[in-house]
């Protein structure tokens, strides 16, 4: 199962992959492309990944969640060009109890953001293009053309 997807993410498909008659709760998270960032209007964006490592890291993260909690996890992250409102990432975690489902879902999205080598180039409505740097509070973007 690939974790990176060049085609739209189907939330119902994610839930369907983890739901089972033994599990009572499914917690999920969808990250959507926002129309603004740092107070500026965003028109679209592009995700680029270090593909083989991103796949490996996603697999490790899902494995960690599934061994730490009694859950089944599905994870998908988009690559390529996305429009406002598109789903950039989807996580679904099914568990016998909602506490486990929520904990696992949250764990996976946090680890994805921290560990999976994916980068985001934002195209602003004013014409600027910039790589997003979540670690830089003062200057959230680095202009692509400097």
């Amino acid at each position: 199962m690939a974790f990176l997807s060049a085609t739209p993410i189907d939330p119902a498909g994610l839930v369907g992959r983890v739901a089972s008659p033994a599990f009572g709760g499914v917690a999920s998270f969808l990250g959507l492309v926002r129309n603004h960032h740092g107070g500026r209007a965003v028109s679209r964006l592009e995700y680029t990944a270090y593909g083989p490592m991103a796949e490996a890291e996603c697999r490790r993260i899902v494995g960690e969640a599934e061994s730490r909690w009694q859950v089944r996890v599905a994870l998908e992250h988009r690559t390529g060009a996305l429009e406002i409102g598109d789903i950039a990432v989807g996580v679904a975690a099914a568990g016998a109890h909602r506490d486990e489902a929520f904990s696992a879902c949250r764990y996976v999205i946090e680890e994805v953001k921290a560990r999976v080598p994916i980068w985001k180039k934002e195209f602003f409505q004013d014409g600027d293009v910039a790589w997003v740097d979540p670690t830089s509070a003062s200057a959230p973007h680095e202009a692509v053309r400097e």
Partner: protein
Amino acid sequence: MPAPTTQLVNVRVLLFASYADRLGLESVRVALPVSATVADALDHVRSLPGGERIPPRPLCAVNLAHASLGTRLTEGDEVALLPPMAGG
């Protein structure tokens, strides 16, 4: 055929996103002394034109897994210099 005896390890260093833009490079082949570490591969990249724009302690990976600057490299390793991630 036995592996050649050599005093060098050959590794490939990959650059991504803003780092690739800064150097105008996505991949560099580097020959390093045996017992070289990720830090040595990084030093080489930072000595290239535009390389000073790679931070001194970037996130790094070796063979598709996160690695520290002190990780020892062996022949054929794939090293990656990773800008701050922005997935999700």
